[in-house]
């Protein structure tokens, strides 16, 4: 060892010189620190005041109750109706203004996520792999996605020779609009949902299958073998995994007795239980099938870059390719929102929604599901196409349909049986977990009855040298 204690590589130097956020904050000027602590005290006092107003019920239904922006909308339409306008104009306005505001809200949520999401994903992946990640553009590299978007806009859009002009132009638009429309039925708070459709579950299924069309158009119109192959693989995978999604949503509908998303959330909050605890197999099937539906790892065979370049959007360049990438991210949080609404209690958190706005709780849950996606991406390798299709058709569909019939029996018992809810729900959860585990075990035994599942013989070098032990000995 030399006497120079300075770390060797730039990376290790950065780690050695790294200071925590608290250290950096304490290094700020005195005046700033005083201002910050005054602001903190003011925040705490205001929170206590708000808490008092919540307890005494002074906030309920007022326009300044920001736990639920629906209140402000109701007050606004009351004001318009009582202003003495012509009734036809007034009713049009009361309809149009909340709708437009809601549409703007959805688009800004998605757009805002498109600016933060890629940065978050790349940062997290970097942390998983002990790298730094994007940290040059703006504070912590936060402006990275904005820079990427600007760069993509400046790139030329090349139309390949022999491409079908209309079909080549349509897919980036046709794939983006469903990603926005899927947000329509999701409830953010009791009164705050953009379009609370009676058949919300069916609407979600219908919207999720629209993406297939855009993929097919893109693959067919590009006049490229890679595009066509990627499109075919993606379509085969997406349509196969649409059925497990529908069947697991059927279990949700059977238990809650409603296809309205707000009522599904209300059922979970009234029973004081999340559906993932009652029907864990359906929840996991939904999660796995939706990773296939939105082309994320481990199911991203549609655009496996080591096999077929970029899959169905190989021939797209510039902003059009950027739109495809943006849709992937948008779909990821859309799936997060659907997963939270159907299985994780939506905007409720066991009574906490009285104190914290429901949309913040939902956003937290969406973020956690997204983190799970990033975690999966950092951990798992890509599956093979035949494995994926076999898993959908031979395992997921039969088992989830069988468990759906079990759920039907349970829901009919639940309605008639006059037991305390924790007893009946706990029993249902136990039975469902046992049935899922047992059925999986038995079905796997049936599927692999002709396959030799014993461990393959160790490679010759490992047998001679002793594998890991030998490596340890050699290293000293």
């Amino acid at each position: 060892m030399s006497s120079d204690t300075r770390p060797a590589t730039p990376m290790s130097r950065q780690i050695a010189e790294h200071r925590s956020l608290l250290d950096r904050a304490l290094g700020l000027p005195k005046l700033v620190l005083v201002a910050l602590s005054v602001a903190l005290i003011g925040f705490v006092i205001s929170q206590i005041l708000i808490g008092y107003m919540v307890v005494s019920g002074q906030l309920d239904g007022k326009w300044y109750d920001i736990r639920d922006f629906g209140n402000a909308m109701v007050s606004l339409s009351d004001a318009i109706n009582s202003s003495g306008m012509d009734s036809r104009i007034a009713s049009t306005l009361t309809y149009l203004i909340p709708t437009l505001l809601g549409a703007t809200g959805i688009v800004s949520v998605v757009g805002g996520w498109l600016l933060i999401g890629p940065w978050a994903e790349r940062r997290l992946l970097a942390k998983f792999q002990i790298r730094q990640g994007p940290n040059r553009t703006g504070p912590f590299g936060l402006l990275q996605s904005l820079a990427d978007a600007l760069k993509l806009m400046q790139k030329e859009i090349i139309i390949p020779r022999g491409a079908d002009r209309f079909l080549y132009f349509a897919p980036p638009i046709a794939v983006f609009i469903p990603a926005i429309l899927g947000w329509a039925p999701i409830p953010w708070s009791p009164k705050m949902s953009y379009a609370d459709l009676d058949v919300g579950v069916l609407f979600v299924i219908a919207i999720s299958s629209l993406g297939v069309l855009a993929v097919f158009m893109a693959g067919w119109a590009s006049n490229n073998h890679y595009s066509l192959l990627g499109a075919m693989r993606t379509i085969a995978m997406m349509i196969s995994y649409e059925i497990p999604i529908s069947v697991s949503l059927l279990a949700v509908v059977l238990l809650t007795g409603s296809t309205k998303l707000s009522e599904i959330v209300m059922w979970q909050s009234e029973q004081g239980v999340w559906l993932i605890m009652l029907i864990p197999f359906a929840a996991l099937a939904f999660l796995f099938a939706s990773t296939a539906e939105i082309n994320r790892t481990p199911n991203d065979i549609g655009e496996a870059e080591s096999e077929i370049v970029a899959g169905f959007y190989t021939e797209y360049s510039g902003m059009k390719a950027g739109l495809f990438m943006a849709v992937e991210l948008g779909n990821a949080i859309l799936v997060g929102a659907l997963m939270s609404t159907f299985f994780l209690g939506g905007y409720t958190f066991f009574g906490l929604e009285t104190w914290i706005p429901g949309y913040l709780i939902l956003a937290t849950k969406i973020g956690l599901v997204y983190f799970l996606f990033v975690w999966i991406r950092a951990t798992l390798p890509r599956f093979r196409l035949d494995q994926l299709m076999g898993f959908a058709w031979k395992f997921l569909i039969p088992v989830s349909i069988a468990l759906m019939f079990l759920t039907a029996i349970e829901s009919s018992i639940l309605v008639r049986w006059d037991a305390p809810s924790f007893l009946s729900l706990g029993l249902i959860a136990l039975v469902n977990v046992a049935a899922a585990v047992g059925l999986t075990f038995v079905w796997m035994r049936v599927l692999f009855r002709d396959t030799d599942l014993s461990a393959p013989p160790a490679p010759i070098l490992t047998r001679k040298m002793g594998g890991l032990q030998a490596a340890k000995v050699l290293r000293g």
Partner: protein
Amino acid sequence: MESETALYVNYLPVLLGGVVGFILVFTALIGARLLAPFSEENQKSTTYECGMLPIRRASTNIGMRFYLYAILFIVFDVEVIFIFPWAMSFLNVGVFAYWLMVLFIGVLALSLGYAWKKGALQWR
């Protein structure tokens, strides 16, 4: 008349959301149109291939497996849409509806089993 209005009230926001999404996408594409360079050059517009010129048009034959999967998908997706009304009204109709649905799905499961037996799910 009442239900018709309710339909419009429910689904017009969806249409409007689609329009707003379209505007968002279109703005991005118009921005690209304004900012990005465009140049006429013949070689640039050849489709991507690993270094050589692509052979033939890409719209060639596609593996038969995909069609089999598509047919199976149609059967099961339509089935799922049929089950949704059953799931909604199942509690009111009773045990008879349950066994009818078991029968219905049993027939479809037989078809899936037949396809499986014939090797439609085998990827060769």
